[in-house]
Structures are given as C-alpha cells and as structure tokens.
C-alpha cells in the first residue's frame, strides 16, 4: 500500500535553488538575502558562529520554522521547479518530501523501535500490510546502519537505545517516509566521537540516494562529510545573519575568497 508514486520517488533526490530569501521572526529580520543552490545527491554543510541563522535557514527548507509563531519568509526556495513558498503549497506536503533530523535525538517515547520507524506511516493513518511494514522497518534500519544492533529487540522502547543509536533511529524514521531531501540540524552535537563517526559514515552512504543538508559547528566534520560548504556570519547582536560565501568544500577549506571565512575556518574568531 505504499503506492507506486512513492516507490518511484525513492531515488529522485532533488536540487533546491534559493533566491533572495529573507526570514523574519515577527518584525525581526533573522536571516537576510540568502541565495544558494543545493545540489542533488550531495552533502551540503552550513557552518558559521552561533546565532548566525544557519539553523533558521535550514528550517525554512521544509517550512519547519513556521511552527514558531510570527515566523515568516520572503523570497523563493524552488525545489524541482516548484516554489516551496507558493500560495498553493501545503507545508505538510513539503515536509513529507523534505525530512529532518534534529540536534537532540527525539524518538517517540510511547513507541517501540519498530513503531518509531513506522511513525511517518502510522501517524498519518496510512494503511500498510504487515509484510510491507516489516520490509520498511528492515530497509530503513539497514539504511541507517542500525539493523544489526536492534534486529532482536524491535519491540523494545525506542528510548532504551543509546544516544547515538537513538539518533540513527531518528534518521531511519526520517528516511522511512522516503523524502527527497534530508535536513540535519547538528545531528552529532549530542553524541560521542564513535557515534559521530557512525553518523558521518551514514551521511556518505545516504548521499547516493538523498540530497543532504547538514548544519554543523564542527569544521572537521564539514570538511570530512560535505561536498559543498556554505559559510554564514552575523555582523553583530541584533543584526541579521547572512550567507558570506559558498563553494566546494575543498576550496572553502584551502583558499576561501572571503577574509571572514578564512578567519572563521582557521579559528581566529567565532
């Protein structure tokens, strides 16, 4: 019952073009004038000091920022020819195509491991046959590199896992709804180095099928996992965050064109 359309979409990762995007919280301009292209089947890293608006920008890509009262957006974010902010676009539909993994692992505490993976299906009241459900649980957990660790305890609560396993469970949950794009908001900042390595390996595998955008404070991580890197900066408190520059990761970390980028990457500030 997953539907042919959904299965077809599985390997259709999409590129996103952002044009002159401004993000407001009420009257406060949080992110100003961002234009960038996020390539399909690649990992794009967003780096920058705290409060520079990179997480806010990330959340505009699946309209999650609208959950906060007063938040709004001007400008365009075009995915596959469709402006995500066109009047006839339903934010719920956008979020089905653009999945998200959060900073802190947040499995549903009332659900087992298997139910967590199926959450996107079950919470939307979709019917799914038992064998399809089992296949989906296995393939999603396989894709998240978690299957071997949890296959014998799928009925245990999701919160019984370690932090790193919970985060991979959240990734499995996100890819179980077969999105085109996967957004990750500092997915490793609450994890130890070994779990971080597991997630980074996973990102490298997932980029074969998905467009991945990851916000990170860890520049080594950006250098390790991403194909392209965007640097955000903020002029001062109360000023909006801006995109300073964006380029191939190797170029950004060897010869950035902006002085601010070089200062940030070499640790002279921020």
């Amino acid at each position, binding site marked *: 019952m997953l539907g042919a359309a959904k299965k077809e979409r599985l390997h259709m990762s999409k590129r996103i073009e952002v044009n002159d995007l401004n993000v407001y919280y009420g009257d406060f301009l949080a992110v100003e004038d961002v234009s960038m292209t996020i390539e399909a089947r690649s990992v794009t890293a967003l780096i920058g000091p705290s409060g520079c608006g990179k997480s806010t920008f990330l959340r505009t890509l699946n309209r999650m920022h609208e959950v906060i009262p007063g938040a709004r957006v001007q400008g365009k974010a075009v995915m596959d020819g469709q402006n995500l902010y066109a009047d006839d676009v339903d934010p719920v539909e956008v979020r089905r195509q653009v999945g998200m993994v959060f900073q802190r692992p947040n499995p549903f505490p009332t659900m087992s491991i298997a139910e967590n993976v199926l959450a996107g299906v079950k919470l939307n009241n979709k019917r799914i046959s038992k064998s399809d459900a089992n296949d989906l649980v296995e393939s999603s957990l396989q894709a998240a590199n978690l299957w071997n660790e949890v296959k014998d305890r799928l009925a245990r*609560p999701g919160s019984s896992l370690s932090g790193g396993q919970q985060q991979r469970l959240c990734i499995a949950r996100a890819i179980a709804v077969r999105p085109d794009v996967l957004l990750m908001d500092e997915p490793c900042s609450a994890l130890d180095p070994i779990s971080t390595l597991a997630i980074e390996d996973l990102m490298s595998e997932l980029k074969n099928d998905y467009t991945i955008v990851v916000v990170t404070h860890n520049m080594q991580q950006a250098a390790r996992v991403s194909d392209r890197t965007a640097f955000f900066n903020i002029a001062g408190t109360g000023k909006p965050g801006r995109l300073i520059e964006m380029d191939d990761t190797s170029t950004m970390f060897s010869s950035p064109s902006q002085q601010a980028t070089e200062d940030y990457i070499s640790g002279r500030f921020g």
Partner: protein
Amino acid sequence: MTTLPLSSTPAAPAPPGRGAASGTARRSRLKPWAPWAAAGGSLVLAFLVTLVAGTPSFASVVALAAVFYLVGLTAWSRIVEGPRWATDRLATTLVTFAFGLALVPLISLLWTVVSKGSKVFSLTFLNTNMVGVFGDMTEGGVYHAIIGTVLITAAAAAISVPIGILTAIYLVEYGRGPMARGITFLVDVMTGIPSIVAGLFAFSLFTLIFGPAYRAGIMGAVALSLLMTPVVIRSVEEMLRLVPNELREAAYALGVPKWLTIIKVVLRTAIAGIVTGVMLAVARVIGETAPLLLTVGIITKVNWDLFDGLMTTLPVYAYNQYSQGGAGVDRAWAAALTLILIVMVLNLIARLVSKFFSPKAAR
C-alpha cells in the same frame, strides 16, 4: 568515556591529599541507633515530667517528647558531629514531624469511617434500597444511592471531560493573544464557584427550559460538570504543556498534520497524566452534597432514568440519614464508607490505566 582516564590522571592525586589535610575522614558520626535512642529517652523523660506535674495523658506525653527529641538530638549531634550535621538532623526531624502531623487527620478520619461504617455495612446493605424502611427499622441500604451517584457522576464526566480536554488543547496548541488569556481567566474564576451556586444555576436553567416541576438526575450532572470542567481543563493543560516540543517537531518533520500530531503524539504521550487529572476531578465532585440536594433531591427507590424523576446520591443519602438520627446514623456512616470505597476503586482503575499507557521508558 574513553578519554576520561587520560584527562583525569594528572589531577587524580590532588583531591585525596587535600581531603586528608582538611580532615574529611576524621569527623565522628552518631551511630545509626542514635535517633531511636533519643526518641525512647524523650518519651520516658516526657512521661516522668508529666507524672510529676499531674496526670500524664497520651497527647501531652507525645507533644512534650517531641520537643525533648527536637532539642536533645540536635544538641547531641552538634556536640558529636558539628553544626552542619546538627542542622541536617534538625531539618530531617521537622520534616518528619510535619509528615506525621499531616497523617493524623487522615488516619483518624479513615479509622472513624471504617469503625463506625462497618456496623451495618454488608453485602445486603449494598444491594437494598430504602423502600418500606420506617422508624427504628435497621434494614435498608444504599443500592439506589450507589446507582444515583455513579450515573450522575458519569454523566457529569461525560459532559466535562470532552469540553475540558478540547479547551486544554486549544489553550496549549492553538490559543494566542487575548482570546486564550480570557479563557484562562474565566477558567480560574470558574474554579472558585461555590458548589451551591452551581446547583442554583442548574436548577434555574432547567426550570426555565422545562418548567418548575421538572426534576431529573441530569440537573445534578450539569451542576457537577460546572464544578468539574475547570479542574479538568487545568490538569489536562498542565499535562499537555509537559509534552516536549521536540516530539511535536519530530511529527511535523515527518509530514504529519497538526491535528494528527495532537491526537496521536501529544494526547498519546500525556494520556497517563490526563487520566489522573480526570480522576482527581471526579473525586472532587463525587462527594458534593449541596448542588445535588437542591436539584435531584432524595427518593427511597432505585431510579435508572437520568432524565426523569428524583435520584438518591450517596452524600445526600448520608446527610439525610444522619439528620434522621437513630438507626439512620449507622446507615450514614456506612454510606460514607461506601463512598470512600468507590473513590478508592476509581483511583485504582486510574492507576492501572496510567501504568498501562505511560511512556515505556518510565517502566
């Protein structure tokens, strides 16, 4: 975790050395039996003192012993253990006394109700009504009152639980600005409505609609729901606010619409607390007397029809029997015991429900 031994190695020798220098291990402590010894000594001393002063009564000995214990143990601890431990023992003693003091009325009440109520309490008492019971007859029971209480309280819950839960959902998930603030204020005002006013409201409402002769259990249910709704709103609101925002965001990010998120994630996560809150609200109204006396009155036979005729409820029954005196007093106590048992059973059911539904990590 793997880096911990590396980083702590250079610092490791320092704390023990410093601790030994300032005498961490040398401080002497009272033995574990010391508080018990102090308690025994205080009791004996208090008994002797009251014996000298006059006739010792239970209350005076206990009160005097408490004072002796408080002063004695603190002084003893101060001499042996030092001021910090003495303060700790003083605080522990005061907290324990406060707990004991709070238990006195509870245990006394339960003891009174059980001892007086068990005189006529029996299975026959539970399934007989008061038809044909006159004067000094010791027969009769509370069957009709149990039916009335259960029906009216269930109807009140059926009215106020949906309203309460929906209002709480509005306040937590949707409400912004003056509308939400207004509702919160009105809920607070409603919490303070005296129960007799709720009774008068229901009485005049039904009189206006159905005429002055109309009497039915539903009138009492409406009066009780007026008292119950704000309690339900308040407790459910607190429970919904406890659900972490991260869970809502996780559901939104999976493409789940807001209404489904509320039903399947927010309510599902908070269900244990909601059930407890509803049970507290039921316990709050099940013992109400005044509004029921006013609206549904009292009758000697069983009335199953919530929409026609007078009904008997346990609190009104107890009031009525007690004011008759004689054999009625025993029946009043037995009715009170029945009421307490019903509330206890409801609480047990609520406990089981919340245990069954609570997030699995908590177990």
